């Protein structure tokens, strides 16, 4: 049952919240080998479920009352530890909940543990994990339930796997450069990143401030719409980048017809680098859209390739500064042996940060340093505007943009080892929308040699309802999103 179905069943008291919670807790434990969860507290979850049942019985059920939702471990929670996938936050207990977590709880959701992610959300494979998963005493990469020798995608790999394997009906993720869309694509689930500023970043461990956005991952657009509506809304007292636009019901247009919908197909998203099986699945999906009344429009996003260096420079620069607070003084890991203050900083950070994080801190520090700021960071921010303007030009000719979420399907664990640039290049299709701050989705659209392929849909600013409508219509006409990996 998806989120919508479960919420209805709970409301109608066909099942209890405690039953739903217990069911998922058991499933999580029996599939620990996937490495998706890093923290679980049965008592906490069941207590929340009991409270939800009481509210349902009293007739005061909120829209998601009793639905168990798991949270990417990048969201701070007061009742469970938060590590952001890093040793440097081992044992950290936040005194407050992330706004997104709080809003979902206020909408009735029951907290179903914390999900593994790439360290500080930096990664595209969920292999950059530095904390043990549930059932392990050492860090493990997260495994794709469609093929346990493959990566699930990242950085919200744990979230994607939890949904794909039925460990949770819905999960929160974050998307900075594609970290919801790409794992959703690799795991055959639905995920959406809203317009930048729609969801509050308060309580999201910061990676790249001008790019990070929270979003839901679930088994359908309908479910995502429900979750997104609960997650989004202004947070003026906590997040200065959160938009003033009032909260919306993103489900309002779900059932609309797609007649006359113009789908922009960027030629740069269909070049030689796209795996044939991926291209085939995406082309098939576009054909389906045409049957639903939409029509294809050829468009161009000429600076697509440039989005890679632009993104990695901006993200690394912001991250290098955001991660300076991890210094062993106020919270988190502190080295055991050090000579003096300078040594304490250096040892603490050396021990606490993984390789990818250190690499990005180094790149970020470099591009902000004296003499390089103009040529790198400032230049990247300018090209970023050009990329955003390219999208506006494209949207003059179409309503939505469609293409693959990634050039390939999930690769094998360890396949990109030692070459971070290979990971960076694989982000090419998700980065542009991130830079422009546009809403984007990934919707299951088929398979390539048994591995899921996602169709990426990109909307103009604030067009989440339209995106969800397009995804929903597709999901009414196809059943890719209802497939399950073998054994799950």
């Amino acid at each position, binding site marked *: 049952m998806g989120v919508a179905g479960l919420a209805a069943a709970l409301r109608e008291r066909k099942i209890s919240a405690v039953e739903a919670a217990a069911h998922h807790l058991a499933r999580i434990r029996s599939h620990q080998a996937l490495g998706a969860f890093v923290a679980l507290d049965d008592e906490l979850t069941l207590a929340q479920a009991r409270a939800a049942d009481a509210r349902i019985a009293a007739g005061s059920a909120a829209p998601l009352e009793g639905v168990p939702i798991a949270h990417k471990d990048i969201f701070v929670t007061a009742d469970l530890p938060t590590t952001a996938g890093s040793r440097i936050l081992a044992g950290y207990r936040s005194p407050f909940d992330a706004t997104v977590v709080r809003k979902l709880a206020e909408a009735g959701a029951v907290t179903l543990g914390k999900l593994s992610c790439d360290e500080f959300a930096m990664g595209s494979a969920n292999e950059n994990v530095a904390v043990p998963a549930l059932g392990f005493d050492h860090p493990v990469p997260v495994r794709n339930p469609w093929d346990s020798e493959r990566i699930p995608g990242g950085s919200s790999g744990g979230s994607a796997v939890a949904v794909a394997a039925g460990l949770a009906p819905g999960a929160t993720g974050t998307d900075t450069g594609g970290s919801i869309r790409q794992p959703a694509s690799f795991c055959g689930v639905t995920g959406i990143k809203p317009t930048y500023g729609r969801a509050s970043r308060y309580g999201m461990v910061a990676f790249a401030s001008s790019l990070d956005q929270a979003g839901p991952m679930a088994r359908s657009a309908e479910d995502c719409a429900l979750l997104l509506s609960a997650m989004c809304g202004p947070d003026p007292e906590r997040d*200065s980048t959160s938009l003033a636009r009032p909260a919306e019901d993103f489900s309002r247009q779900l059932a609309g017809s797609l007649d006359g919908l113009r789908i922009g197909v960027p030629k740069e998203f269909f070049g030689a680098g796209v795996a044939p099986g991926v291209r085939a699945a995406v082309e098939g999906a576009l054909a389906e859209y045409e049957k639903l009344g939409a029509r294809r429009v050829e468009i161009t996003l000429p600076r697509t390739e440039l989005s890679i260096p632009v993104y990695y420079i901006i993200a690394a620069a912001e991250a290098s*500064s955001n991660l300076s607070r991890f210094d062993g003084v106020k*919270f988190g890991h502190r080295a055991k042996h050090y000579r003096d203050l300078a040594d304490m900083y250096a040892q603490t950070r050396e021990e606490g940060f993984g390789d990818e994080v250190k690499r990005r801190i180094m790149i970020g520090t470099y591009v902000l*340093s004296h003499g390089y700021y103009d040529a790198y960071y400032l230049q990247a921010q300018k090209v970023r505007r050009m990329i955003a303007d390219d999208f506006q030009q494209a949207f003059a000719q179409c309503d939505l943009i469609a293409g693959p979420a990634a050039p390939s399907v999930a690769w094998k664990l360890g396949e990109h080892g030692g070459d971070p640039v290979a990971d960076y290049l694989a982000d090419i299709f998700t980065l542009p929308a991130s830079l422009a701050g546009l809403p984007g989705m990934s919707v299951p659209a088929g398979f390539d040699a048994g591995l899921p392929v996602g169709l990426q849909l990109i909307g103009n600013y604030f067009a989440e309802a339209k995106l969800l409508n397009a995804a929903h219509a597709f999901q009414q006409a196809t059943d890719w999103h209802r497939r399950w990996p073998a054994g799950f």
Partner: protein
Amino acid sequence: MSEINTFEAAQSGRPTGPLVRGYEVIIGFETHAQLSTVSKIFSRASTAFGAEPNTQACAVDLALPGTLPVMNKGAVERAIRLGLALGSTIAPRSVFARKNYFYPDLPKGYQISQFEIPVVQGGSVSFFVGDEPKTVRLVRAHLEEDAGKSLHEDFVGQSGIDLNRAGTPLLEIVTEPDMRSTAEAVAYARELHKIVTWIGICDGNMQEGSFRCDANVSVRRPGDKLGTRREIKNLNSFKFMQQAIDYEIRWQIEEIEDGRAIQQATVLFDPDSGETRAMRTKEDAADYRYFPDPDLPPLAIAAEWIERVRAEMPELPRAMAERYVREHGLSDYDAAQLTQSPALAAYFQGAVAAGANAKLASNWITGEIARRLNQQDLAITEAPVTASQLARLVARIGDGTISNNAARQVFDALWTGEGQDVDAVIEAKGLKQMSDSGALEKIVDGVLATNQRNIDEYRAGKEKAFNALVGQVMKASQGKANPAQVNALLKAKLG
């Protein structure tokens, strides 16, 4: 991106100051004024002084993961007030930037400040050094957050970090290197201190760290290019400022005379030894990697807001002083004295409104009242003699009811609480000057009758003899005669 080098600002046409051992002294100031908001600049924790460690450091102030800054409107409003008071330009749009460096009292590992586009630009501060008018130009004033504090006393080999102060709003006020002497620098600091407290943006409590100055000092032989400056940090008393700058000037001159070049350095003043000493140099200290803070969109200040603030601004001390000179004929010096604080000016104005002669009121306030307040460590608002009481006292001197001497006795009685009402005190102490001219004339005649020798000596040209006659009359009247009347009568009778 390089640090703004205020030191290289145009200095042509600036006058040289008094030379020290043949060297010209060049001083610029950076002042950090803590703003008087109740909450922090980027969080809503309290800024109240003196709380237990870390009880006023909320999640945002501690830089806990996931926290973000939200700007305090009161801090922006105070920046606007300062800009208006100093004749600066208020930037319609300004940007917050991160200044990145590692230090235990800096929880985020960066300070949120303003770099390329500050909220206040230009402006000036005018004041007197002795009789000489001076004007120091401002480069800019920008908003930023204060850091926490490190405490060393109670810990061996360790420091204790208190982040209560972290996030307190500051205005950093930067001058051109326009000052040419220690005296000028201290006078500038005093004037700036007066202004920020006058307009209510800062409580000015220097012991509590509300107003801290960094002095950039260099020396050069007149005509040479600007010397290398050293920065004396965190001077939090006017006395220390004077001692520190004087020492630094002498030290730099000694170094140069001994053939050594001055190295750019940050120095601390040690009040116990009276010396400045370079801080431990930090490697790469200068590369702060400034970039606009992505968590804070640009600050927009609309013209309407500026006008609203302007309409609510009090009359500023210099304008008020100039008005006193114009309207009441006071001297520049006295007017400056009376406009030390809004409360003092209000006292003066209260006395004048109650009918006091402005000059007389001014004399009493800047003289006797100031002396007693100082001695007893009282503020003008705590003065036992009210403005209207002073006005009554001054009126009684003016209308001849009491002499100046008698007035001092009345004042004393009022101050010590012996009496409340001027006339009642005069009555009770029998201090009324003799006003009956008939009775006075009788006494004068009496004295003249018995002081022929004095009369003769006076007529022979000895002024002292006249005074002796006056003295005799005063004595005979038991001090109640009006000296001016006595003078007039004697002169009339002696021809």
